[in-house]
């Protein structure tokens, strides 16, 4: 059971962690893979029961069926929210996944390709863009020749437009400060990898929103934060990417250091916040935390913010393309909370509250809202069938709300949900919506 790879793991600790699971099954309906398959092996309780063999009963190695069940986990952490006993499921799963020489995703040719992808493509704008374009071309070919076997079951509506954002720069620029000169009110915004390539507009919108609520924004030349590599089991590479990322989180204004770092991708924020060896000076925020009307932090007074949101009727309606003068017009919106926001960071309700402030928005309750959409990093590339089933279920729930607009705050969720909804639906990042309303 324990070989040299596990040398750093304290087995006593792991036993204690697995003992916390009382097998009550409360996690079952929270788990997307269980909801889609109905199979105990695809539930957190089932997986823990298998891991228990490894930890408590001294089993050498798990069977292939068991490994497959562990691999099927999306890592959405909904089970940790549901668990009454506080079982550290993610840690235990990580422990079990260490024993992975057998995994086909990590060895041989495909393993090599994967590692190279994490290493070279993610941190490289140009290569990422090429990957995006080839996905787009592939989707086009599939449309023409629908009988071809599919390698990837995602077809996000990828935009070609790409507006380059200068890095190592301030927004607004230092010469043009327009009253924002307090370093306290400056935040660092990272562009990351996937978000910047596929949803680059969201970054522009985030800067607008941050400016509108009184923050001065600095964009460093950081690259991928390492979350994707790390969550796929490439821990060493992920760690290195993270260290490089953290080195970039430094700037000063008039010699005073800027410590506030803001994320608009829930996945990146959750990953960096989890790090153990962070600079204690650093303050990490998801953008949602700066917009929480119940715990307002931004320089712009809350009353002003609320007023702006409430009165932005015409701008809102033109954003949704519902340009109608009549006052009765309202638009149905539903909100999908990203797992890395709700389950990993415990940030809930922020965007719902803001949407409720908008007078002409009907916020429709999404059934199974906090259930993962099936994106989960690269999950939809590794487990296309299951990811597809989970995505379809999410899409069905969205369609049942009768809202044509879905708001969600993570690039992975955005592309997965877009791919499973019909063409007349629109998925928007809350920043895009807010930018339209505030500016």
């Amino acid at each position: 059971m324990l070989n040299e790879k596990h040398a750093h793991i304290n087995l006593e600790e792991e036993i204690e962690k697995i003992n916390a699971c009382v097998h009550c099954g409360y996690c079952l309906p929270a788990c997307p893979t269980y909801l889609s398959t109905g199979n105990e092996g695809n539930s957190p309780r089932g997986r823990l029961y298998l891991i228990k063999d490894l930890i408590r009963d001294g089993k050498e190695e798990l069977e292939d069926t068991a490994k497959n069940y562990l691999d099927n986990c999306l890592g959405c952490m909904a089970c940790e929210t549901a668990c009454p006993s506080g079982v550290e499921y993610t840690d235990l799963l990580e422990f079990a996944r260490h024993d992975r020489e057998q995994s086909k995703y990590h060895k041989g040719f495909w393993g090599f390709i994967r590692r190279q992808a994490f290493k070279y493509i993610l941190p490289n704008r140009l290569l990422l863009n090429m990957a995006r374009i080839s996905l787009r071309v592939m989707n086009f070919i599939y449309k023409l020749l629908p009988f071809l076997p599919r390698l990837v079951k995602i077809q996000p509506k990828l935009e070609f437009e790409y507006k380059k954002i200068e890095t190592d720069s301030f927004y607004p620029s230092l010469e043009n400060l327009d009253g924002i000169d307090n370093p306290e009110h400056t935040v660092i915004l990272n562009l990351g990898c996937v978000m910047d390539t596929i949803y680059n507009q969201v970054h522009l919108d985030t800067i607008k929103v941050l400016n509108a609520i009184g923050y001065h924004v600095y964009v460093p030349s950081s690259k991928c934060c390492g979350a994707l590599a790390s969550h796929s089991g490439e821990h060493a590479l992920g760690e290195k990417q993270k260290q490089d990322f953290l080195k970039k989180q430094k700037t000063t204004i008039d010699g005073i250091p800027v410590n506030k770092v803001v994320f608009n991708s829930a996945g990146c924020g959750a990953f960096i916040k989890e790090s153990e060896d962070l600079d204690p000076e650093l303050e990490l925020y998801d953008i949602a935390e700066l917009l929480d009307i119940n715990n307002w932090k931004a320089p712009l007074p809350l009353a002003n913010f609320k007023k702006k949101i409430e009165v932005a009727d015409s701008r809102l309606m033109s954003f949704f393309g519902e340009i109608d003068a009549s006052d009765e017009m309202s638009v149905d919106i539903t909100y999908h909370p990203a797992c890395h926001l709700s389950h990993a960071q415990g940030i809930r309700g922020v965007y719902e509250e803001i949407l409720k402030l908008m007078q002409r928005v009907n916020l429709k309750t999404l059934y199974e809202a906090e259930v993962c959409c099936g994106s989960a990093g690269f999950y939809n590339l590794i487990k296309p069938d299951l990811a597809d089933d989970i995505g379809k279920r999410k899409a069905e729930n969205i369609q049942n709300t009768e809202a044509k607009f879905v708001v969600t705050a993570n690039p992975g969720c955005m592309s997965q949900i877009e791919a499973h909804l019909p063409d007349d639906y629109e998925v928007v990042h809350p920043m895009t919506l807010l930018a339209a309303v505030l500016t």
Partner: protein
Amino acid sequence: MFYLASKSKSTGIIKIEALEIMEFLLHEFAGFLKKDQILDDPVDLKLYETDATSLFPKKPKLVLLPGTVEEIQKIIKAITRYNASNPPHKVSFVARGAGTGLSGGALASDYSIIISLARFTKVIKVDYENNVVLVETGVVNATLNKVVKDSNLHFAPDPSSQQACTIGGNVAENAGGVHCFKYGVTSEHVLGIEMVSSDGELKYFGDLDSDLNYNLSSSDLNITALVVGSEGTFGIVTKALLRLTPLQDSFLTIQAAFEDTQACANLVSDIIKQGFKPAAIETVDNNAVRAINKAYNLGFSDDVKAVILIEIDGILEEVIEDGLKLKDTVNKYNPLQYEETQDPERRLRLWKVRKGAAAAFGKIAPFWYLYDLVVPRSKIPDALKGLEEIADKYNLLLANILHAGDGNIHPNFLYDPYKDETVVERIHKASHEIMELCVSLNGTLSGEHGIGVEKQEYMGHLFSDTDMNKMLMLREVFDPNYISNPNKIFPIRICRECHREIEMEELKS
């Protein structure tokens, strides 16, 4: 974690080559089920060996995940055909929902195939005019409640496992919950059912007919009530027509802490004697209070030996009036702490002492074993005293949680078999005495968890052989061949099916 050495039982089932049977049946099943609906890998079978108990792990021979009622019918017909053409072989089936049961009711017995209802998750029709809902039985209790909540309705039975347990399981075990004191247990909320009986045919009972129409005034023999609580021994319930109850306008939650467990118990009797009808009366005692206080930092002083939670609901004026009277009653018993609230968030915090109990136990000891006793309300003080004596005698750590309103006591033994080697044995001995204590107080074996395999050997303490034979006769009406969830509820010695098997074994040799 429930961890007791599993008892070895002689069920008298004839030894036959399991593989042979299953291969034959597998071939049949493969004809109408997809590959991912048939689980026969040893890893899968292991995963289905327990439910929320780890008491009596028993691997099924096969697990099936049908998606439609027709598939369930086909499965059962295939089993029946096989049994008929290969006497005395007897393959049986067990329905399983979310596997949250605490008495082993959804576990396999010898030659059992588990039929999972995990894919039966449709809420078919909500009738807001008549306040009824038709559901497939794999629907999760809390999910159903979420669906109807916007219309100010709820399905009243709320067992602690509400967030995961399925309607099918609620029906099988006749589930209760903290609010069932006022609203009644599951049997009072099931109006009709669709059941696949043990010959594979569809049966409709109560207000539901075969076109899934319902007539809410049917006046035939109330068979639905018989099926509810039969623990899956009559067949597999696939659809249920349920009554929805309007949510109350307002509520008041009272929490009071006492130095003396007896005072708390007496207070419960007093409240009921005075004719109050609270939605819930729950108490948590001694070790349980300490555990929960430690886990959630609730700020009870060290002197606190018992905490009571009382919740009343209804229209505002009524709630306020009753609240004042209740306050007086509670204060008569000199509580150390008293708090009442109408604020939803504070209410959740007050309820933490009860709802967070199970999780908090995990922080004191890695395992716990839970009982489900019912005694007449007036006997609660005696029962608590008796339990304490038994715990002392066997040197066990006892923590009690009570649905005090209906006399349902959940004593828990918290233990760690890795540190204390004889503890499991001592718990077994204590169990025996606890059951005897319960019967001597005119109590019964199970309030809401069911008998299952866990308590079947104690049935004889409560019922005579004649009584149990009568119950078995009733069961035979629905399942004459004993293939629907066999070897449950009744003690093995009385069980006709086993006796029959033994007879057959004798015949064979």
